[in-house]
């Protein structure tokens, strides 16, 4: 990596560029890159499309970006709108605007501040923040701690600690309010974790060591190893203790 020559791309109007090795790629107007890109920074302030893979230390999207290929970035921040057609790998993902990813995602850390849509599985050491998400497959994370602000769903969520909260000042245990807050609900088939703490969540099965099912939840079956705490406003059809593990 010592002899590499990295030039910069900066567009103000528009233009199309070839893929390759770059220092800084900045789209202030609109622009397209055809081919794989390896850049230090990749910034889209206007509209940018890449047709190929993108690898960069940092990617920032303030406008609208389309990535027609895989993306690898240490830092990926979306303040505007971004679409990644295939899978992606991130060190840290900050999703403040709208981010839609067609394939699966592996990240160290995901900070949710907007809406994140993932067409495959998602794995991360930590998923924190508030907003909405839609994971078509499995969300596997060491620590999930999110405030659900928009209709959210996942097929499965698994991990060490899974905490799903309703927005502050949201619903009390007064179930009459449930319909009002229906739009800020997480719907998931299965949740499995060591510590599971839920509010405003609809699930078929919740399994864990220590399970708390809070206000606004509707769960068909809870299986817990050590403790189970239902809140007054929770609807749980069946809860049963299973043999504790370790």
């Amino acid at each position, binding site marked *: 990596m010592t002899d590499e020559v990295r030039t910069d791309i900066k567009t103000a109007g528009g233009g199309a560029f070839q893929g390759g090795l770059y220092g800084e790629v900045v789209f202030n107007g609109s622009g397209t890159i055809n081919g794989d890109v390896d850049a230090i920074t990749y910034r889209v302030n206007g509209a940018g499309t890449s047709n190929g893979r993108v690898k960069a230390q940092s990617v920032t999207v303030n406008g609208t970006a389309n990535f027609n290929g895989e993306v690898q970035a240490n830092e990926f921040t979306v303040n505007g709108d971004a679409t990644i057609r295939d899978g992606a790998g991130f060190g840290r993902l900050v999703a403040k605007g709208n981010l839609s990813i067609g394939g699966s995602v592996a990240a160290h850390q995901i900070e949710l501040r907007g809406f994140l849509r993932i067409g495959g599985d998602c794995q991360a050491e930590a998923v924190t923040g508030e907003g909405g998400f839609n994971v078509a497959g499995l969300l596997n994370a*060491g620590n999930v701690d999110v405030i659900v602000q928009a209709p959210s769903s996942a097929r499965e969520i698994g991990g060490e600690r899974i905490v799903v909260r309703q927005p502050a000042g949201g619903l009390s245990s007064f179930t009459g309010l449930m319909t009002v807050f229906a739009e800020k609900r997480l719907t998931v088939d299965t949740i499995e974790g060591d510590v599971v703490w839920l509010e405003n969540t609809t699930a078929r099965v919740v399994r864990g060591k220590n399970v708390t099912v809070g206000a606004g939840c509707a769960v068909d079956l809870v299986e817990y190893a050590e403790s189970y705490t239902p809140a007054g406003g929770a609807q749980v059809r069946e809860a049963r203790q299973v043999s504790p593990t370790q």
Partner: protein
Amino acid sequence: MDPDLISKKELLAEAGISYGQLYRWKRKGLIPEDWFVRKSTFTGQETFFPREKVLARIEKIKSMQDEDASLDEIADAVAPDLAELSMTLSQVRESGLVSAEALELFSAVSDGDAPLAFGEMVSLSALDTLLKTGDVSQDEGRIVLDTLQENYPQFEGRSADLLFVRRMGLSTALLVTSDAEVRFDRAARVIARLNLSECAESLRARTRR
């Protein structure tokens, strides 16, 4: 239910691990993706595992943890890093990793003494296994090798099985994804089904010795 499969719940109870551990090990690549088999049950979709493989793997992870190995070290040991394993044909010969018969067949189709690509190492290892068990003859070994060389690259990133089939004196080899169920007509005999990731793993284990 298939006795070769174990449900996730049973697995946790039998291995004495928690959901958190299982998901963590999955994230770290300690338990391969294709061992998580989703099946419809009467209550809904549940996850199952190949019983013997997963129990053996968990045993290995736990014993390595007892020796204070980090998850990354364990991942290295159980999931071979494909790029790292590179030897030339003459190095393989000196190492005595595979039999002379397998080497001879292999050197007939490979050129020179360039370092073998990972796929070639796996092919060689698979061929060696089949020759040693007597499942295939020398001539049939060539079919196996051709099939592997031709098709294994297309399985990149996916777990593949090699099948060797005989029917009325004819034999052929084929590659399928590991989760594929394959059925033949009554006269056909599946002589061997080899998981190529396991071939790679055992090869790696032997190179470490």
